[in-house]
């Protein structure tokens, strides 16, 4: 049953066994998994079944660093959450992503890959990417491809998969939930606080409001918060203002260790004549799945070279897109704007002269919306796009600002940087790729170190994956939730989503979000609910 909070009586009190806060991917999966318990479930969703600008505005941050996108633009606040606009790119985390690595501070999950593995299979069914597995060998044979890393001891080819079209979780599973007798989905229900008993450590109620300024509450035995990587921290910090950090924040960990997947375009791959990469590396379709092969650094190599995990894929580019001259012209023009002379001025000038046709083409495209030089559109090579595992950094954090949103909840301010160490580790991995014997027979790699400052600032991309702000730990001093995802200091309050990830891995987090959520449902079913 779906209930619009705008249509309920003033100061309503709902009773339930389980209250799920948030109807995004994690909330929907959790509700779906718990349906079979026949317990009464209430799911509170801030939005409704459709996008609404006023509700979306609740994501607006007070401040973010200039390089970092405002969460208002990267998340979606209605049923289905960000699955309403995701690419559905999925891959499992690697076993090494869960391990304590002495060269990555604060790494290590309190659970192993093996413990999560059984839940990945079901997670793949949810995301509709379960056909064929993730083994490169299977897809290589299917597409009659060659493995470019067959001779390599450091790198291997792995695949990521997306379903076509991307799975929108509310559209896919919403009917099932709406038809169920033991669940109520309350829309336009914005959670603003909890009622928590500091003596018993029990959360008794969730308070929610509407834009009509009506306030209601849900009383339940168990609460699970699934608001997303930034909002989980924001709301937990909000609750803790009232309850003096008793909810998982005794050691000031809530909002800290905020991680993303910085994405850099720091190298080009230039294949030998007539030796383009097989279509599997460029991305290809097979029966409602989009398959892309990419380069993966082995666990042994990561250990030997003390690097972070990294996902590298090859994107086909034209000559104009790989032009060093265009990049140099940007560097020079930026320097002139700042009244500076760039380093290696002569080299940049030379690049411009060499690529004058590409620069002219870019200018004509921009100013006159027309194309002039045919050759600039010809295949030029591949851009190597690297999605980086970030080292957890206590100073990268989500905090409450001073400004409030239209419901009176403080907006977030976000501190975020990519450390020099993480940048160096990225260059190390790209260097290893450039020198790998498997590359020698198919092409050469150009590292764009001369563009370093732009690569890590104006050209820096993000996976839009928000992680780590309510991290899982077996120790209250270093985390917010325990390995069962229960918030420290509480007996019945849980969190799910990428905010519980202690490290972010090197692949999009959604499949792992679903896996940890199914695991949580399993835990709840086998312990608390029986």
């Amino acid at each position, binding site marked *: 049953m779906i209930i619009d909070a705008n249509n309920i009586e003033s100061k309503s009190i709902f009773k339930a066994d389980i209250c799920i806060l948030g109807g995004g991917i994690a909330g929907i999966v959790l509700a779906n998994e718990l349906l079979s318990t026949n317990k009464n479930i209430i799911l509170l969703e801030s939005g409704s079944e459709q996008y609404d600008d006023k509700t979306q505005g609740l994501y607006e941050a007070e401040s973010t660093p200039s390089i970092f996108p405002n969460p208002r633009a990267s998340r979606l606040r209605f049923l289905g959450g960000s699955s309403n606009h995701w690419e559905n790119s999925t891959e499992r985390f690697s076993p090494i992503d869960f391990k304590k690595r002495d060269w990555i501070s604060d790494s290590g999950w309190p659970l192993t890959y093996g413990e999560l593995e059984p839940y990945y299979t079901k997670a793949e069914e949810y995301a509709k990417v379960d056909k064929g597995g993730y083994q490169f060998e299977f897809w290589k044979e299917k597409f009659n491809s060659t493995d470019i890393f067959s001779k390599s001891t450091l790198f291997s080819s792995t695949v990521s998969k997306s379903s076509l079209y991307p799975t929108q979780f509310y559209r896919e599973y919403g009917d099932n939930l709406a038809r169920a007798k033991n669940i109520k989905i309350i829309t336009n229900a914005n959670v603003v606080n909890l009622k928590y008993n500091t003596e018993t450590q029990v959360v008794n109620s969730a308070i929610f409001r509407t834009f009509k300024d009506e306030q209601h509450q849900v009383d339940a035995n168990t609460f699970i918060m699934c608001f997303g990587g930034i909002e989980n921290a924001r709301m937990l910090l909000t609750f803790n203002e009232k309850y003096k950090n008793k909810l998982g924040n005794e050691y000031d960990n809530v909002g800290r260790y905020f991680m993303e997947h910085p994405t850099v375009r720091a190298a080009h791959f230039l294949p030998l004549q007539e030796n383009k990469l097989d279509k599997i590396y460029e991305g290809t379709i097979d029966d409602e799945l989009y398959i892309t092969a990419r380069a993966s650094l082995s666990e042994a190599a990561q250990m030997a070279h003390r690097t972070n995990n990294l996902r590298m894929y090859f994107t086909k580019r034209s000559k104009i897109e790989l032009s060093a001259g265009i990049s140099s012209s940007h560097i020079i023009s930026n320097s002139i704007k700042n009244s500076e002379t760039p380093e290696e001025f002569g080299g940049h000038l030379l690049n411009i002269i060499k690529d004058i046709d590409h620069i002219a083409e870019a200018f004509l495209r921009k100013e006159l919306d027309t194309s002039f030089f045919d050759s600039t559109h010809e295949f030029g090579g591949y851009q190597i796009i690297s999605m980086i595992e970030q080292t957890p950094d206590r100073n990268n954090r989500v905090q409450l600002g001073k400004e409030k949103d239209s419901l009176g909840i403080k907006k977030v301010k976000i501190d975020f940087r990519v450390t020099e160490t993480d940048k160096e580790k990225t260059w190390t991995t790209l260097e290893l790729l450039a020198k790998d014997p498997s590359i020698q027979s198919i092409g*050469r790699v150009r590292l764009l170190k001369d563009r370093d400052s732009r690569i890590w600032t104006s050209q820096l991309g993000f996976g839009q994956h928000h992680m780590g702000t309510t991290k899982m730990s077996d120790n209250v001093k270093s985390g917010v939730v325990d390995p069962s995802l229960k918030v420290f200091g509480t007996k019945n309050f849980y969190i799910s989503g990428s905010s519980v990830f202690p490290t972010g891995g090197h692949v999009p987090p959604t499949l792992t979000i679903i896996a940890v959520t199914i695991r949580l449902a399993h835990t709840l079913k086998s312990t608390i609910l029986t």
Partner: protein
Amino acid sequence: MTNLTRRKFCSLLLLTIAAPIGSSSADAIAPNSIRNSSNEPSSALNECESVYKEWIKNEKMSPAQYFFQKIQEYQLNPQQTSEATTLDFEHNNFFEVNGLKLGKTEASFLAIIGSNIAM
């Protein structure tokens, strides 16, 4: 003869002579322009020129000296640049130009071409 025509002439002449020796190397740094007669070969040749300039800046030995010494050391003949590159990659013997990682032997060969263009 314009500068560009002279460059084209010199480079095409060199490539004709050296094609069996350095095909893989030239292709590697200029994947789609150098062998396509309809394309302007200047970008590949500019790369060779850059290799040459980088070489004389950093190396004591001339590119030709290095090339023949290395070929001998690897017990190859000058037509086997590709094999020399394989061995360079295996022995971590690299030369970097504008971020491009090349086997040092192929780099010396490209520098030989570049030296003629830079004349």
